[in-house]
């Protein structure tokens, strides 16, 4: 596990301070220099997240660029979250969890059918939240704009022999991750409603989202 690091920013000074219930989507535009914090209020809650260059949304978060550039599959303090053009969208400045996933993707009605049973199509899922948030945001973003995402606070270990599992979380109540925007960034979040695996400890819970302007 990566070294933990905390932040001195005061929530009372935040420009944005909202609680996002489980099963909800959210978009927000950050200005370069802003600091963005996600707090896992009750512990082990997966927060499915994508970032876009707000001025040119065809440039977006790339899981493969990010992992390859840092030579590691787990995201932690110091990780530059790279775009499809190899440029940093944000960097992780503080992290009290220690490991975040970017291999597991987002759940969808269809992937739930494959993974858990054809009758699971009706269950709420992250891609539905992404699609609704993008539709409400406007600007023409669609399913085409959903590449592999980040799952903050989620634990998807890979073994040297190439096995991959969704494991019990390593997060806990109050743990957070904080990022500095390196350009103007559109944030897209689904607070994950998955009930079929341990990614939310079988109990999806709210998260707190805070933004501070550049100090």
């Amino acid at each position, binding site marked *: 596990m990566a070294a933990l690091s905390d932040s001195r920013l005061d929530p009372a000074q935040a420009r944005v301070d909202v609680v996002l219930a489980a099963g909800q989507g959210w978009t927000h535009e950050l200005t370069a220099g802003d600091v963005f914090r996600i707090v896992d209020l009750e512990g082990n809650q997966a927060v499915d997240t994508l970032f876009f260059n707000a001025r040119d949304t065809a440039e977006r978060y790339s899981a493969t660029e990010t992992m390859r550039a840092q030579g590691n599959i787990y995201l932690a303090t110091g990780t530059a979250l790279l775009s499809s053009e*190899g440029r940093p969208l944000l960097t992780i400045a503080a992290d009290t969890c220690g490991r975040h996933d970017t291999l597991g*993707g987002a759940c969808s009605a269809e992937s739930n059918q*494959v993974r858990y049973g054809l009758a699971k199509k009706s269950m709420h899922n992250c891609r539905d939240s992404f699609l609704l948030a993008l539709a409400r945001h406007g600007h023409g973003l669609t399913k085409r*704009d959903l590449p592999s995402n980040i799952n903050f606070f989620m634990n998807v270990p890979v073994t040297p022999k190439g096995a991959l599992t969704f494991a019990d979380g390593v997060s806990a109540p109050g743990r957070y991750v904080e990022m500095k925007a390196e350009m103007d960034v559109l944030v897209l979040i689904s607070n994950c409603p998955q009930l079929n695996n341990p990614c939310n400890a079988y109990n999806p819970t709210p998260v707190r989202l805070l933004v501070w302007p550049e100090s």
Partner: protein
Amino acid sequence: MSSSGGPEKTLVLAGGQAWSRRVRRRQVLRLTDDAGAACVSALLFNADDPLERYNMADTLKAQFTAYLTADRVLYSDMGRVLCSITRDTCGWHDTISGCGDGATSRLRFGAGRYQELRNDFHRNARDNFLVELGKHGLGRRDVVANVNFFVRVGVDDGGGLRWIARNSKAGALVELRFEMDTLVVLTNTPHPLDPKPTYGPPAVTLSLFEGPGPESDDPCRIFRAENERGFALTEAYVAERKGVL
């Protein structure tokens, strides 16, 4: 001749080149690494609706794997099987480490411009993808996490990534049996983690032939219960496309 005895279309994909075409359901595409140490990067789309495309995460988590080999399938983001890996003499194909671009190419091999090198210039995977996707009306929004055939990037206990040399020996081949009509986009260009200091991706051979469909006990279908459901969703979609109720 193909392994099924029918006609076979073969072409050589030279180093640096890209290729795309529609491959129909039940056709088999064989990639052969003639010289060894190749890297063929791939993106796949539903040929009739490219909004549906290969999805790395759904492929990996449905099969509890971090790599691709025989008996595993490549899932789209719609829970369907684009193709099955019916034969693999290499043993490990990567899908977590992405592909190179102009910046990674210049860093390792120098400028490599057309102006000086003419048609030996250093083509890279991302630019090749964008050119080939552009021919189908697709572009930057469609470049998602890709497959790297013949490549192995290892993951250690701490999550560290490491290039595994000599993963693919001369003559290694992999066969993909398509379960849906699929737009296949390939580029034969260096992987950015390959430490080889000079630009010179080896040629690979592509063969396309008609194959039999999967039986009920097909190894890819029964690899996991997840795959049986993936095949069921795929077959329902194929019927829908044919206008069957």
